[in-house]
C-alpha cells in the first residue's frame, strides 16, 4: 500500500498538503508541519510588499460548526523578505509551494519575477481571497482576468502553476476553464466562503475588518461539490487539489473520490497538536485502503463518478 500521489508532474509522498495561510508565515512552522508527515506545504500568500493585514480580531473559531472565520487580509512581509524563508525550506528539502497574490496582473508578475529562480515545487496563484478591498475575489471571479494573469505567469516561469479558485462565484467551471486555457498545471478548490459574525451584545461585526472568510467543517460539503463539478468537467485533463473543511481522514478520502489528486488542509491543523492530527489522518487513510484493498491513491481519485 502506497500513499504516494501525483499532481501533474509533481510527485508527493502522500496527498496531504498544508493549505495557504495556516501555519505558513515562517519557514519554521512550515518545516515543522511537513516533518510531522505532510506531503507538501503551501506558504502564506506572498505579495509584492509588506502588508499589515486587517485589524484584530482577525481569526476566531465558531465551535458549534467546527469552523473558523478569518479576515487576516493577506498580512505578509512581501516576497523580498519572505524569499529567505523559502530558501531555507528548499535548502532543508521541504517540498514547498509558494502561494502568491497581487492586486492586479502587474503585481502578480512582480512577485513571480522575484521568486521564479527558486526551485519551488509549484506556484499557487491565490485568485480568491475574500478579505481584501482590491484584488481578492474580484480577480478570481472574472474569467478574462484569470486567463490573462495565468497566461502571463505561464510565460514567466516553467515551474508548475496552480490556480486557487474561489467558491464565491456564479460558475466555477468558467473560471477554471480560463485558468486551464491560460496554461495552469492544477486547480486548487476551494478558498473560504464570504461570511460574517455579529456579536449581539456588542452589536457590531466581531472581525476587525467586519467581513471574513469561512473555513473548516462547515464548508466541506461545498468544497466536495466544487471538486466533483471540476472533475466531471475536466476529467483527467487537469489535476485537482481539494481544499475545504477536512477535519478527519474520511474527509480526505471523500475529496479523493470526488476527483482530487491531493488535498490541502488548513483549519484542522490550527490545534495544539497538529502532529497528532496528521498521524490520525494517515492512519485513517491506511485503514480505509486496507479495508477496501486499495493499493494506490490513484485508484481512489474520481472514484465517486460512476
Amino acid at each position: 500500500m502506497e500513499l504516494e500521489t501525483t499532481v501533474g508532474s509533481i510527485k508527493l509522498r502522500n496527498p496531504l498538503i498544508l493549505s495557504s495561510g495556516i501555519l505558513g508565515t515562517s519557514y519554521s512552522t512550515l518545516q515543522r508541519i511537513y516533518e510531522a508527515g505532510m506531503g507538501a506545504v503551501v506558504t502564506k500568500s506572498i505579495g509584492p510588499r509588506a502588508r499589515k493585514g486587517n485589524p484584530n480580531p482577525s481569526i476566531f473559531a465558531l465551535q458549534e460548526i467546527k469552523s473558523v472565520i478569518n479576515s487576516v487580509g493577506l498580512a505578509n512581509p512581501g516576497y523580498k523578505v519572505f524569499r529567505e524563508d523559502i530558501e531555507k525550506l528548499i535548502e532543508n528539502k521541504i517540498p514547498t509551494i509558494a502561494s502568491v497574490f497581487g492586486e492586479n496582473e502587474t503585481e502578480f508578475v512582480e512577485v513571480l519575477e522575484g521568486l521564479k529562480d527558486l526551485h519551488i515545487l509549484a506556484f499557487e496563484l491565490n485568485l480568491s481571497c475574500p478579505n481584501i478591498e482590491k484584488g481578492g475575489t474580484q480577480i478570481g471571479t472574472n474569467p478574462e482576468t484569470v486567463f490573462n494573469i495565468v497566461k502571463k505567469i505561464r510565460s514567466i516561469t516553467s515551474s508548475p502553476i496552480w490556480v486557487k479558485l474561489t467558491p464565491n462565484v456564479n460558475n466555477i467551471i468558467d473560471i477554471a476553464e480560463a485558468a486551464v486555457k491560460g496554461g495552469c498545471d492544477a486547480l486548487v478548490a476551494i478558498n473560504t466562503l464570504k461570511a460574517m459574525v455579529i456579536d449581539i451584545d456588542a452589536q457590531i461585526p466581531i472581525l476587525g475588518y467586519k467581513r471574513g472568510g469561512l473555513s473548516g467543517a462547515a464548508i466541506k460539503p461545498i468544497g466536495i461539490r466544487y471538486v466533483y463539478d471540476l472533475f466531471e468537467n475536466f476529467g483527467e485533463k487537469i489535476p485537482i487539489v481539494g481544499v475545504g473543511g477536512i477535519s478527519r481522514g474520511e474527509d480526505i478520502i471523500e475529496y479523493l473520490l470526488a476527483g482530487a489528486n491531493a488535498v490541502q488542509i488548513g483549519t484542522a491543523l490550527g490545534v495544539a497538536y497538529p502532529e497528532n492530527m496528521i498521524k490520525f489522518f494517515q492512519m485513517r487513510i491506511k485503514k480505509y485502503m486496507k479495508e477496501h484493498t486499495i493499493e494506490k491513491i490513484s485508484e481512489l481519485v474520481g472514484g465517486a463518478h460512476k
Partner: protein
Amino acid sequence: MTKQTLPNTKPIMGRIIKKWEECEDTFGFLIDIPVKVKGAKPGQFIMLWIPGVDEYPIGIADFENNVLEIGVSKMGVGTEAMINKNIGDLVGIRGFYGKPFQPPNKVNHLIIGGGFGMTPLKLLTTYLLLREEKEEIHIFEGARSKNRLMYLDWFQNLHDQKKLVFHVSTDDGSYGYKGFPTVDLEDFLQKSETPSVIYAAGPERMMKVIFDIGKKYQKVIDMQMSFADRYMRCGFGLCSYCAVDPTGWRICVDGPIFNAKQIEQIEDFGNYRRIETGEKQRI
C-alpha cells in the same frame, strides 16, 4: 481518536464589574463572564476584545467562579481603549489559551518579573501558596520607580505575613533596592543552596539576562518563562504569526510558558519577534 476539536469559541462578552489603578499606566479589572468557564492555570492568557478597537492577548491575574481578574498596561491604542472602559462596559473574551507554568515540588520558587509580566506571576503565586508543600517562595519584582510596581501592596502583604519573601527593586531607588531585579536574583542564588526553579515574565531582554544568570547555577534545575513579546492573531495555533524560529513553536499554544530546555532551542529568544506582517524584527 481524532477527537481534537477547535479549542475555543468566538468571543464571549463579559462585563467589567470593578476597575482600579494598579500602578502608573496600569489598571486592574474584574470581569464577569456570563457563562461557565473552566478554571485558568497560571501563565495562561485570554484574547481580550475591545469592540470596535482591537483584540490582543492578556494574562490572567486571578480567577474565581466566573469572575476574571486581569491587569492591563497602557501600550498603544488597544490597551488605552481598555483602560478607558468603565464599570458596566462589555468586553469580549476568548480563552483560556496556552500552556501554564508547571512548578515541580521540593524546590525554591524564584519568581521574577516586571511590568504586566507580574500578571501571570500573581496567579502563579496564589497557586503556589495553595499547595501543601512548604517551599520557599521568593518574588523579585523590578520597575523603573515605585509608582510602576504592580501588585506592590499585594506582594508586600504576603511578605509581611511571612508567606513569602518579596524582593523589590526600582531603577531609581524610589522603593526597595536600587537597581535591576536580576542583581537581586543573582545575589540570592549565590547565597542559597536549595534547588530552585526560576519563573520569569517581563520584557524579553530582561528574561534573556535572567536566563543567562540561571544557566550559571546548577542549583537552578529549571527556568520557566512567559513569552509575551509576540504579536498574536488567533491565539489558538492556527496562524503562526506568534511563532519562534527555528523550532516553529507557536507562543500561543506551544507556549507562552517555555522551560529551560525549550528556551535553549529558541534562537529568536531575546533577539527577534514577528510583527503584524510576519516580518521579523530585532527585539
